[in-house]
């Protein structure tokens, strides 16, 4: 890993989000907010439909980095802004979210800054998303 340079692109990951994935994440995380599984409630509060947990998108996005770096133990800092919801329909196909990442800095202390991009329906859903990695 001595030749990591700014601009290096990490392998892209495409993830399919279905309603069942939202239910699975709700159980694993303990976040049972109704807007992540009940269409009636989601519409009533002004959402376009059931939306994925922002934290599910954040949790999936870091896999672009951990698969390249080795494991979550390599992550020293990770932050995102939630800018758009991922709307997940009640069907068998789900929706696709595409995650990309690129090295944006190699720091003097040996850590590497990696910018992360998450795209759903042609638009980014995370803003200012980056991880600091120690290999």
């Amino acid at each position, binding site marked *: 890993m001595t030749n990591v340079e700014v601009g290096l692109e990490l392998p892209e990951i495409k993830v399919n989000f279905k309603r069942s994935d939202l239910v699975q994440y709700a159980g*694993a995380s*303990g976040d049972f907010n109704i807007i992540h599984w009940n269409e009636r409630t989601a519409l009533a509060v002004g959402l376009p439909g059931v939306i994925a947990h922002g*934290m599910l998108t954040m*949790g999936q996005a870091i896999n672009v980095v*951990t698969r390249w770096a080795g494991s979550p133990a390599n*992550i020293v*800092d*990770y932050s*995102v802004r*939630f800018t758009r919801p991922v709307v997940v329909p009640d069907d068998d196909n789900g929706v696709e979210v595409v995650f990309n990442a690129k090295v944006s800095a190699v720091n003097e202390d040996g850590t590497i800054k990696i910018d992360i991009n998450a795209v759903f329906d042609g638009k980014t859903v995370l803003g200012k998303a980056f991880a600091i990695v120690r290999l």
Partner: protein
Amino acid sequence: MALNLESVGRSFTSDRTYLVGREKVREFARAVGETADVCHDLAAAKAAGFSDLVAPTTFSIAITLEIMGDAATSPEVGLNWSRVVHGDQRFKFERPIVAGDELTVMTTIEEIKAIAGNHMITLRGDVFASDKSLIAQVWTGLVERGEAA
């Protein structure tokens, strides 16, 4: 009830402890698609120098969101949870969380600001091991939507 601006800088200790379970680590890893060996395979985790399975990067949200939410919705702070949208999130690690850790969380109200009729509150959770060493710091930014004008 409105957010209490004077709560900025206040810290809230919780007497709850959270024991990180090995199967919970696996369950969370499956839910977020984390396939690293050290999150699933005990032998691999030990071979990599860890005492047990390594928790996925965002795992601590399963602990902190509720504890930090309890602090933010206390009468002293006054956050209305039913009007909250998750704005931003950060995790900073001193070391990875591993199964077997017994965690406690101290919540600090870092900032409250008004933006276009909404309020943004930034909470910091300091996550400690049972020996009181700091493992991670977790920042959660919540937007409290204002009442419709």
